[in-house]
């Protein structure tokens, strides 16, 4: 911005308008070349594996493509097939929204509440509790430990306890009974969900200016709830936005946990999600055009929800 205003006097010196604009643009590019060089390695990889794939995926969603023949343009028929004749997709969509509507808000609020309480602790205890809550999300897919807990025979930990206290007489097939599968996957998903957003909240709470809180007390803030709404939340709005992005994206992407716990495909598609549907068509049936249409829908859902929630969060405490 600064460089432009400095160069403006030069532009007036005789050159035709258009040419000078291009010239000054090139000049600026040349001046900033080092920045482009620094960014190049990252950007090339980012372009190749994130930006271009999204574009390809969008393009392929209008074609029939089986990896062998050249993609054939078929217009909207992938989408109409998805919404009108694919019964399993509607189950997947319903399950995905169930997961997202339950785990998204709960994990987001849990991240905040736990961060808020942890922030009250003395530094050593705080560090320990942060570790306890954050550990599941980085412990390298050990969520299969829940397989043992929810195992369907009487050696399963939950069944064992319940049978021991006489609550049930026979072991329950937690992961095979449609009634329970969704709930089990949701519990494990919640267990895993205190990730980067949670850390951001704790860090954000620690940086809140103490003097703001003291000023608030003078201005007549009476209790902790008022303090939370009028001071704490508005001052950490950027972290709230960041945390929301993390939790929303995560809550729509349930797949690995569902596969690890309920199998692929799960009994009667009880834990089938948009992502597992995408895997089904993309890596097993090789209907790439159709799978791309699923991916495009997933992209739209995730980004759309994020945009809406960002807009809502701007209103917090305002």
């Amino acid at each position, binding site marked *: 911005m600064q460089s432009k205003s400095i160069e403006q006097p030069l532009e007036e010196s005789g050159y035709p308008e258009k040419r000078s604009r291009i010239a000054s*643009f090139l000049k600026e590019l040349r001046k900033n070349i080092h920045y*482009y*060089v*620094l*960014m190049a*390695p*990252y*950007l090339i*990889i*980012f372009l190749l*594996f*994130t*930006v*271009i*794939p*999204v574009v390809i*995926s969008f393009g392929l969603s209008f074609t029939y493509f089986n990896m062998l023949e050249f993609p054939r343009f078929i217009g909207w028929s992938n989408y109409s097939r998805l919404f009108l004749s694919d019964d399993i997709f509607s189950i997947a969509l319903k399950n995905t929204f169930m997961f997202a509507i339950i785990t998204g808000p709960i994990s987001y609020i849990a991240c905040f509440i*736990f961060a808020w309480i942890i922030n*009250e602790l003395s530094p050593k*205890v705080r*560090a320990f*509790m942060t570790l*306890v809550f954050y*550990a*599941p999300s*980085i*412990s390298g*897919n050990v969520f299969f*430990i829940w397989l*043992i*807990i929810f195992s369907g025979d009487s050696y*399963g930990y939950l069944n*064992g*306890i319940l*049978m021991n206290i006489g609550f049930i007489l026979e072991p329950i097939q937690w992961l095979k009974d449609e009634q329970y599968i969704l709930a089990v996957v949701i519990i494990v998903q919640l267990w895993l969900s*205190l990730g*980067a957003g949670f850390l*951001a909240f704790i*860090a*954000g709470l620690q940086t809140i200016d103490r003097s703001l809180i003291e000023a608030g007390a003078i201005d007549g803030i009476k209790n902790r709830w008022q*303090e939370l709404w009028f001071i704490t939340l508005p001052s950490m*709005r*950027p*972290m*709230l*936005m960041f945390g929301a*992005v993390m939790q929303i*994206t995560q809550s729509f*992407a349930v*797949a690995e946990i569902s596969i690890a716990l309920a199998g692929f495909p799960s009994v009667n598609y009880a834990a089938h999600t948009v*992502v597992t549907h*995408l*895997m089904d068509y993309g890596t097993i049936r090789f209907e*790439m055009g159709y*799978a791309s249409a699923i991916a*495009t829908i*997933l*992209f739209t859902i*995730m980004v759309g929800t994020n945009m809406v929630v960002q807009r809502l969060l*701007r209103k917090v405490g305002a």
Partner: protein
Amino acid sequence: MVSNTIKLFRMNKKLNRSFTVTFLMFVFLALFGAFMALPLVYAVNNAFKPLDELFIFPPRFFVRNPTLDNFFDLVSLMGNSWVPLSRYITNTLFITIAGTVGHILLASAAAYPLAKYRFFGSKAIFSIVVLSLMFSPHVTAIPNYMVMSWLGWINTQASIIVPSLAFPLGLFLMKQFMEQLPNALLEAAKVDGASEYRIFWSIVMPNVKPAWLTLMILQFPMLWGTDGGNFIYSENLKTLHYALGQIIQGGIARAGVGAAVALFIMIVPITLFIISQSSVMQTMANSGIKD
């Protein structure tokens, strides 16, 4: 017990909190803390249980007669198999270290200009990076496979490492952290005649060490836990997590060995987090998305 509870909380002088509320909050936190920690504690205990204790009814949470048998079994089992366990460990270590170090370098190099300068495209690039935080990698899985096969990277470790170098979260956090660096520091170096590359390498990088550790703690567990996905099918390129899956498939007889591998897999990232926690919190304080 009661006095301990009070001591655990810093008492806020301005707003008096009733003892009941403080106590309830403590109970609440302890309850959920147990929910979070117990599966991991259970995993640790399982690794030291002799086989007869693993299948006791009713199941027992804590180990009675701790033993290292599971670890010995693991070593002998994998020593006898076609591909030795050390191979899986080396593969995982290579992928994880190359992916993490490379990611920190590339993301920092890209974050520095974005954080400190305005130039043609800088705003657009950052917006696209923020946008890409809003969807998960599943969206790009299929075209990624095509790009990989076009590059001839199927069944190479590059197929796991290279895409991970440009994960958007790392660039985002690094850029937010670098914005806090004082401009005077950079200008002083420029006056001394240092090139942009030199400024980046000898002034910016040493000053963002907390952010390195944060990128590490986000990148490391992801790569450490990878099972090679759809890209790797040669046995001698497979990862530790894949081997764990194979062992668990072995059923009851392998339950002890499975528990030992699980402990090994989870202990490494957790240890790293313990070491880097204070740096991570420092970086996360700048993580917000600004309007």
